[in-house]
């Protein structure tokens, strides 16, 4: 018979006691062994009934065992058959058994069960159909087979962003553009914004006149000026104030503003919902290590890998990861053993290096500021085609260069700061994220500085109306240029750097090839690229409403570019990026981008006076003013309600209630943690108790066996049995009857 014992023989140093098989805890751990003809359900059922008749009744186990059996049966009855870990033949038998039992039930419960089954099947068919519509399912499956789940998470993140941008575009289109387009067809009467003829509302046309050279069209296309400026692409074109449809009036400025707020909220909710599981686990786990050893060993192998070379690489990366983690344990020990003098030295070094990092960041930001100012001034005078284009794109070029150089500097510096390897990576990443996302904000700040600075000191219209008659369109153009340039750079790097690198490494045997090595698909840098693009989209959609559509197309094409370069040029990274921590990292960086994007949008809406020559907000001082004005026109009930919600009293009381709820939940979590620790200790103690008792039992059995062989079978007589010394009952089990319950 096979060993089904919970405890090993070797440690107990005694022959296996069949008593162990009857322990309720062991019975609940039993899983099906070899498929015998009788099947395990019969075995479990019969063993329990036979237990009742055997002489082990003295333990009082029969009642306990029967209770367990009942509980198990009702538990398995509640679950659908396919969730039982048994082979197909047994599941079929279970299903037939249940159908038979169901016949005994009333017709009402029968009908209920059958409807439940049909509903479940309908739901599954529905999900199957939906999953067929999933974008890029086949491509992602191929990537998963070749590279594992770490890189897969990058591509599913990309797919998520495509969907998000498409939904944002639908929002903008549906609420802002569609009414304008369908107004003539739906017999709507559009009233346009009243252009007064003040000097602030003077908007010279920027479309080119006369003979236009071809390359000027290309400049216009790439910079959003010229013929593109007065199109749906930019804020300035939306001059509509209200649209009077037959049944209702449509307030376009209000719709424009609300859609902006709506898409920011929608992005926030969607991202948080998507990352809910990752965050929950991170917060619930009380260990510091997000990736524990158990996670690496038990969930370490990607069973979806199909490729032989990928499997080999996965093995070597796992080996590398395990060695690094074990090394890190040793380093942690070393860190804990540091002397005070060493600590001081390290802190001083870290302080100096952090100051250096801040200096580098400040230098980059200053160069972006200078580049923006220079570019704005240079756009006034046209020299020639190429130089014009370079001046237009100067901020983008400087940002890209800074984003290229600073990660190299950071990864060089961090080696001197003597952190643990995992922390090094995370810290470098955080610095790169900060650099990338803040550079956009610096660009915007310098742009706004230009817009609100006039020659006379105090601007008449609130902004520099001479240079920027329609400043929102200019901001929109800058965002448009950033996006286009980002896309061109990604394409250019793939074509001009990665493919030649592959060719060199493959065909050339020189030292350069060996030193450079084959391209690795660096997930963090790629993720930062697309989060950067998404942040631009969030900031720029208010000024350039068609930007989400451009972003959707851009990410769509980037998917195929990245897939091609991954399959042809890259090998999997030696440092593995786990799927779970990847998802957490991607969504965390995306949330940082969203938070950073909200700041310029809020300032642009609420603080800076909107231009009076173009756009839907001509008659308001700031864009936000639409809302108070609309609220004051609402009926009295709704108005008082909205005013009450936005009052301080409401905000303060909401804050206090939220704090109370948070404290309660924290206290509850602390109490649960204490209970869990107590239960753990109790489990350890119980395990030890069990081992101790079994040892004693085996000892007693041995002595009894010796005694019984010496004095014949008199031990069977019940006179000898003393209720306090239970070991006698164990005697029965030393020589078990042939049809013992526990043996099959």
């Amino acid at each position: 018979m096979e060993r089904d014992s919970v405890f090993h023989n070797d440690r107990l140093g005694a022959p296996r006691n069949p008593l162990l098989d009857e322990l309720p805890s062991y019975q609940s751990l039993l899983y099906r062994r070899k498929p015998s003809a009788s099947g395990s359900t019969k075995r479990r059922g019969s063993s329990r009934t036979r237990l009742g008749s055997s002489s082990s009744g003295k333990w009082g186990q029969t009642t306990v065992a029967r209770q367990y059996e009942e509980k198990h049966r009702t538990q398995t009855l509640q679950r659908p058959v396919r969730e039982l870990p048994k082979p197909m033949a047994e599941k079929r038998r279970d299903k037939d058994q249940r159908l038979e039992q169901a016949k005994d039930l009333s017709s009402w419960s029968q009908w209920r069960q059958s409807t439940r089954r049909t509903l479940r099947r309908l739901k599954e068919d529905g999900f199957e159909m939906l999953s067929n519509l999933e974008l890029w399912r086949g491509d992602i499956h191929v990537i998963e087979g070749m590279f594992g789940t770490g890189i897969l998470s990058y591509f599913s993140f990309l797919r998520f962003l495509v969907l998000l941008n498409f939904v944002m575009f639908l929002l903008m289109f549906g609420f802002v553009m569609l009414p304008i387009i369908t107004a003539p067809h739906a017999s709507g009467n559009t009233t346009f914004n009243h252009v007064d003829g003040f000097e602030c509302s003077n908007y010279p046309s920027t479309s080119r006149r006369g003979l236009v050279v071809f390359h000027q069209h290309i400049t216009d296309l790439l910079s959003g000026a010229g013929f593109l400026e007065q199109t749906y692409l930019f804020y300035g074109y939306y001059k509509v104030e209200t649209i009077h449809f037959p049944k209702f009036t449509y307030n376009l400025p209000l719709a424009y503003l609300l859609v902006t707020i709506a898409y920011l909220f929608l992005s926030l909710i969607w991202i948080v919902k998507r990352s809910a599981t990752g965050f929950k686990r991170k917060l619930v786990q009380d260990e510091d290590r997000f990736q524990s050893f158990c996670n690496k060993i038990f969930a370490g192998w990607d069973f979806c890998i199909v490729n032989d070379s990928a499997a080999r690489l996965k093995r070597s990366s796992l080996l590398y990861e395990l060695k690094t983690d074990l090394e890190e344990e040793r380093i942690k020990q070393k860190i804990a053993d540091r002397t005070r003098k060493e600590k001081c030295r390290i802190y001083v070094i870290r302080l100096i290096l952090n100051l250096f990092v801040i200096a580098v960041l400040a230098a980059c930001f200053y160069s972006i500021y200078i580049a923006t100012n220079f570019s704005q001034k240079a756009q006034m005078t046209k020299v020639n085609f190429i130089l014009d284009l370079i001046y237009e794109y100067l901020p983008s070029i400087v940002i890209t260069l800074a984003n290229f150089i600073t990660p190299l500097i950071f990864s060089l510096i961090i080696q001197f700061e003597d952190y643990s390897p995992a922390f090094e990576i995370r810290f470098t990443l955080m610095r790169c994220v900060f650099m990338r996302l803040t550079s956009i904000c610096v660009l915007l700040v310098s742009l706004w500085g230009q817009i609100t600075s006039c020659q006379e000191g105090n601007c008449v219209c609130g902004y520099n109306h001479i240079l920027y008659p329609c400043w929102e369109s200019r901001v929109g153009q800058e965002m448009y240029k950033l996006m286009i340039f980002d896309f061109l750079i990604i394409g250019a790097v793939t074509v001009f750097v990665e493919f030649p690198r592959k060719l060199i490494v493959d065909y050339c045997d020189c030292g350069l090839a060996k030193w450079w090595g084959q391209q690795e698909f660096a997930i963090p840098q790629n993720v930062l690229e697309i989060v950067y693009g998404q942040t631009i989209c969030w900031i720029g959609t208010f000024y350039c409403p068609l930007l989400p559509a451009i972003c959707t197309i851009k990410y769509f094409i980037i998917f195929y570019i990245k897939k091609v370069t991954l399959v042809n040029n890259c090998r999997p990274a030696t440092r593995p990026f786990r799927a779970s921590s990847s998802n957490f990292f991607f969504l965390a960086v995306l949330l940082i981008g969203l938070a950073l994007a909200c700041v310029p949008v809020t300032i642009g809406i609420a603080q800076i006076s909107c231009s009076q020559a173009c756009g839907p907000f001509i008659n308001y001082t700031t864009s936000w003013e639409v809302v108070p004005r609309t609220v004051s026109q609402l009926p009295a009930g709704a108005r008082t309600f909205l005013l009450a919600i936005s009052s301080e009293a409401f905000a303060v009381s909401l804050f206090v209630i939220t704090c109370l709820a948070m404290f309660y939940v924290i206290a509850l979590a602390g109490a649960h943690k204490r209970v869990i620790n107590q239960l753990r200790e109790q489990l350890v103690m119980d395990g030890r108790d069990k081992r101790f008792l079994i040892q004693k039992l085996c000892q007693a059995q041995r002595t009894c066996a010796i005694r019984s062989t010496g004095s014949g079978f008199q031990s069977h007589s019940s006179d000898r049995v003393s209720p306090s010394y239970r070991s006698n009952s164990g005697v029965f089990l030393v020589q078990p009857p042939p049809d013992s319950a526990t043996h099959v």
Partner: protein
Amino acid sequence: MGTTASQLRKDLLSEYQELTFLTKQEIILAHKRFSELLSKEDRNIPTPRVPMEKVLSLPELKSNPFRKRICHVFSTSDMKDGSLTFEDFLDLLSAFSDSATLEIKSHYAFRIFDFDDDGTLDGGDLEKLVNCLTGETDGTRLTTEEMRQLISNILEESDIDKDGTVNLSEFQHVISRSPDFVSSFKIVL
């Protein structure tokens, strides 16, 4: 209950749909792939059995270090030779499918990792598991000292009752807190 080489009967199809986590398309695809593994003579017998070597030639299993254990765990053969019938094959795909519950996956994962089939994961099982993951050759193994450190770390994290082995409940408990398990324990044809 035989399946012909060409078609799967409709009632069998719906029964398999109910008894496994696979969708209709997946079952039909599985039937096609299974039939390709059968030799000519086997196609006509009612419940054909594919020997383990043929199953291991599937691309999804070929590079998997646990392929032999998987075959042994899901095989219902009396000779314990790891051969699979079509229903065993469906059980295998069902346990590894996207919609299988965590309990099923962890149950079968435990059995796959239990190399000596004794119901618990002890030090020997864990060592064999780690060697499977890192590679069989000498250059790719951990040193003895590292292995010892690793196994003691694993037991420290997962062995709740401190008996030196990981039993099924402890394994399921540690898997429920492992965020990567569901996404990595997946085989899709």
